[in-house]
């Protein structure tokens, strides 16, 4: 890193720091500094990642319009059909109609396209919920642990313990205790994620609590909760948004892994992991029922990670590789 500063401050060196008269000349015009928003809008990975996510998220409300089929409808006649096969279905009035299975059907004759599109709901919900829950709990614990040194020693040992639990084993344990539900899956992913957030927040708080402006707040008698809320918390938001996107991506992936292993969301709910799990046996003959959900999963996680990378570069330029 070059020690040269890129922008040189409007200097203090003006012969008059006599400010009332020289205010406009002296104060720095920062209007040329791009705002976070405009930096975001110029970052290609934010744009590409954001557009992809928008596209995938739009599948959630749009699913019923994209296919008239129910993703859970079993059709024994149409098992294991390759993509492009025309299947015959009955509507509510008993009228028959033909429908092209764009992505083929699975071993129970369910339409893979419908399952993949409806599966986006669960996958995205798991990702979002895990990110929100893990970040909120982690933020709270991290603030306390970082600011109060006595609490820190105890809390961080607990966190070290939590971090040692593999998500998959925890999920198996939870499922065998309380049955496979969406809630168990989310819990199983959230718990090992929390310590990572706590560590991040704590490291930021440890640095910020030594800042002179925090000490200044102490010396003007600001109560500790207000110090945490006003002076410390805002510094954690940007890194947490970035961390949140990565958690979201890895949670979607983990949910798929858990479902694939059969310890995740119950098999009747379509999720990308479930679809792949059910296509596992016949993968060599009918790869389509793994291939399509796999593509959606990959694209989603890729898009989220691209967005996270871009956010990090735009929000915190020091971490960016471009400078």
């Amino acid at each position, binding site marked *: 890193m070059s020690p040269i500063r890129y922008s*040189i401050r409007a200097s203090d060196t003006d012969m008059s720091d006599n400010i009332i008269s020289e205010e406009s000349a002296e104060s720095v015009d920062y209007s040329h500094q791009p705002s976070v928003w405009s930096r975001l809008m110029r970052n290609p990975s934010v744009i590409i990642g954001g557009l992809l996510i928008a596209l995938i998220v739009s599948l959630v409300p749009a699913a019923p319009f994209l296919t008239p089929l129910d993703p859970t409808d079993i059709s024994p006649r149409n098992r294991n059909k390759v993509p492009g096969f025309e299947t015959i279905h009955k509507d509510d009035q008993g009228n028959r109609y033909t429908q092209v299975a764009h992505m083929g059907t699975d071993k129970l004759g369910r339409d893979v396209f419908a399952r993949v599109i409806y599966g986006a709901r669960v996958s995205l919900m798991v990702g979002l919920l895990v990110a929100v829950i893990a970040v909120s709990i982690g933020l709270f614990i991290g603030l306390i642990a970082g600011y109060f040194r006595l609490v820190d020693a105890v809390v961080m040992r607990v966190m070290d313990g939590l971090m040692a639990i593999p998500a998959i084993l925890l999920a198996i344990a939870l499922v065998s205790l309380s049955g496979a539900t969406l809630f168990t899956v989310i819990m199983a992913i959230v718990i090992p994620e929390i310590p990572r957030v706590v560590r991040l927040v704590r490291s930021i708080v440890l640095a910020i609590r030594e800042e002179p402006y925090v000490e200044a707040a102490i010396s003007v008698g600001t109560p500790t909760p207000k110090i945490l809320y006003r002076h410390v918390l805002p510094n954690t938001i940007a890194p947490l948004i970035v961390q949140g996107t990565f958690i979201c991506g890895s949670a979607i992936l983990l949910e798929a892994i858990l479902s694939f292993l059969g310890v995740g969301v119950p098999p009747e709910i379509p999720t990308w992991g479930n679809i792949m799990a059910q296509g596992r046996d016949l993968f060599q003959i009918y790869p389509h029922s793994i291939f399509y959900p796999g593509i959606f999963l990959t694209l989603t996680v890729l898009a989220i990670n691209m967005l996270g990378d871009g956010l990090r570069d735009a929000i915190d330029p020091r971490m960016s590789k471009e400078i």
Partner: protein
Amino acid sequence: MPLDQHNVLSVKNLTIDLPRNADRKHAVRDVSFDVAPGEVVCLVGESGSGKSVIAFSVMGLLAKALNVSAGSIELEGEHLVDVTEDRLRELRCTRMGMIFQEPMTALNPVMRCGDQIDEVLQEHTKLSSDQRRQKVLDMIEQVHLPDPQRMYSSYPHQLSGGQRQRIMIAMALILEPVLLIADEPTTALDVTTQAQILHLIRELQSEKQTGVLFITHDFGVVAELGDRVAVLKQGELVEFGTTRQVLSAPQHPYTQMLISSVPRHEPPDRKPLAHDAPVVLRTEKLKKQYFSFSLGKRRNVVDAAVDISVEIRKGETLGVVGESGSGKSTVARCITWLIESTDGKIYLSGDNIAQLNSKELRKLRRKVQIIFQDPYRSLNPRRTVGQSIIEGPMNYGESKADAIQHARELMELVQLNPDGLDRYPHQFSGGQRQRVCIARALAMRPELLVADEAVSALDVSVQAQVLTLLEEIRDRMQLAMLFITHDLRVAAQVCDTVAVMSKGRVVEYGSAKEMFQNPQHEYTKALFEAAPGRDFVFGGNPNSM
């Protein structure tokens, strides 16, 4: 030109552009100067004047965003601006060496010091490893480091700041370059260490007839070391001449202003305090110890401050002077209750505040306010200046409207536009931010104002203005002031009484006037002795101070 053949370095009409989004067009504009063999040329200027940019452009280490748009740099007649990267690499160390401000970051922390110097020889010479080792040891001895063998195998963190800077100098000079560039090499060091390093640079440079380009913001250092001096203002060279000429009889108004801002080493005559002025702060045997625990047992006890007994009266300024690690900031932080003292008493207007519970403390807290060193970090960047100033009074139940009204008055008091309350700290310069910090402290209507190196991060001209402001405020509001500084000149200007601290203890305590004229303690004497440029008579217009 034959004259140029003589010069080690000659810079002609150098112009370096800044990137488009910077606040001015050129980092450096049309700068010309030269360095003769065996000569020390000082580049002086305040922050942002472009002095480091010049040094980096000579070394070919300019950041990619900056580029030389006009002019030439010649090292012994060889053009450096368009030379290839390979040739530059050859020239660095062999023909020109550089030392930096912060020796800790300039040295590789995971490599032994000797090996780091040896690397230079490996790159640029064909000596055998035994010869190289011998040469490195010789060089370590030349920079007067004790026990060269041990120094050779030490890691940077095992050495003190001064020792590390000596290693840097050894590394820069081992191939006997014709030009040494020193970029504020003593700024991060204590005054006594600084004196030693300056002496060392002088000694080696005259021995080897090296030309030195010495970058500094400190006119004391210039007076001590420089043969000639170039004064830069916002990238333009305003004055270039011999040190004596420039410092004693500066021609350009900017140089005159800068030099007259340098605080004098002698305390001015001050109004004596009223005899009946009440005592605001008195400490009795104040003590702060740090413990390191290991498996529940106390292992290490560090005495950060021991037996500190001082007194400040209304309208008086007590200066606490000392080098880094002397415990002066510890004292300030104990008194402001940012850390808890281990033992002793702190009387604030008669109340002992040393051992209080947090509720009682809160009531007394507003009586003591502190101003910190770094104006860039002492204001929350996400809150407007106004929010920062009214935070304290509102904590103590003042209504928002009253607090804002008071804040507007205070902004005027610290000579800032009251409309600036709605702005964020980054819209202010360093000196202005320090004024805001003063306003924030005053908003609490304190009795004691603690200034912890409050002007140390400021450029000399701004420093002079902030010091004047602090004095005015102290007199107008009849505050007691505790002024922590490492800079003897600053202490001489503002303090009525001075306490000199060394290794956690007050070694000398008394009236500033007497102490500066006739220091008693050995340490005080050494400290005064080491102050750079102490015997130099600075010119300029003394009235503008």
